[in-house]
């Protein structure tokens, strides 16, 4: 009897441990709950991007044009940061990648600040979306 109690107690302990792990993975998204979980994050086929930009007569960036985006990214959001020599973003903007046939493109016309093209030494890109 004593052996059986110990065995059942041990079994309950082990089961509770695994159940706790299970619960941690299933906490619901709710106003009073904290969730944890994971989901697959994949690329929509982008291997690299490059941009061209337009300027006004003063040399300020007026548009950044990004082409060669895979069609699988249609509907996703393209974010571009204009980065200076100190590796600091001096302007950034977003655009939704529209529907397209062969490859997609996106144009960003607002950067949250006036950005001198001469100060931009790097474009940083991010493509996010479902």
């Amino acid at each position, binding site marked *: 009897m004593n052996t059986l109690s110990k065995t059942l107690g041990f079994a309950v302990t082990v089961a509770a441990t695994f*159940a706790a792990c299970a619960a941690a993975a299933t906490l619901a998204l709710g106003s009073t709950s904290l969730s944890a979980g994971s989901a697959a994050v994949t690329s929509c086929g982008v291997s690299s991007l490059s941009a*061209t*930009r337009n300027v006004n007569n003063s040399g300020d960036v007026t548009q950044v044009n990004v082409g060669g985006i895979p069609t699988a990214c249609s509907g996703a959001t393209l974010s571009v940061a204009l980065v200076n020599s100190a590796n600091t973003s001096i302007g950034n903007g977003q655009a939704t990648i529209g529907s397209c046939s062969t490859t997609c493109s996106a144009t960003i016309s607002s950067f949250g600040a006036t950005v001198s093209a001469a100060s931009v030494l790097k474009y940083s890109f991010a493509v996010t979306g479902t």
Partner: protein
Amino acid sequence: MRRFRLTPRRIAVVVAATLGFGTAAGFAATLTVGTWHLWAGSQTLTKTTCPTLSGTSSTTDTYVVQSTPGSSFGTNTTMLVKAPSGSQDWAFVRFDLSSCAIPTSGGADSATLSLYVQTAPGSSRTLTVTPVLSSWSGTLTWTAAQSLTYGTATNTIVTGTTTGAKTVLVTVDVDSLIKNPNANYGWRISDGGTTTATTTFGTSENTTASHRPQLSINYEK
């Protein structure tokens, strides 16, 4: 060899593990976060300056005269800009950017056109710099100039009343030219004033190098 014995304790562990993992897997399968695309990267730019373009090897310039509509002045050492309408003179200038070897994926950070006023008008004039959108040569005449197509005025030059170099930003035009180098037709300089005045600029044939038109370009690639 030691024989594996199925004890109650071992049975309990197997049952508990099966239940625990099964429950976890079952809940994990219900997550509906969604499938996300995520990619990040960057493009580094190189900043360069093209040596100043000047002289007949890189410049084509001329002027046309309304009062002699069939004449051309492409080899003169000066070019005239004159008002008013009815007796106008227009100057034309363009530069060959090929020596800069700027890739079409590049772009102008800044571009400055410099014209030297050899003879200033009696009163300051505001001259209009207009991009030309069709082909012309040094033998251009007033009559032929009427058939050219022109873009929207890029900028203006205020002559003042003294001689010397006058600069004007033409960044947007040069940026466009870098991206489409086959559409290199330069600019027309005109005076839309209603009073009579003439401004005389040096041309690429001018014997004084500093009096020739110049184009300075800072660009990225």
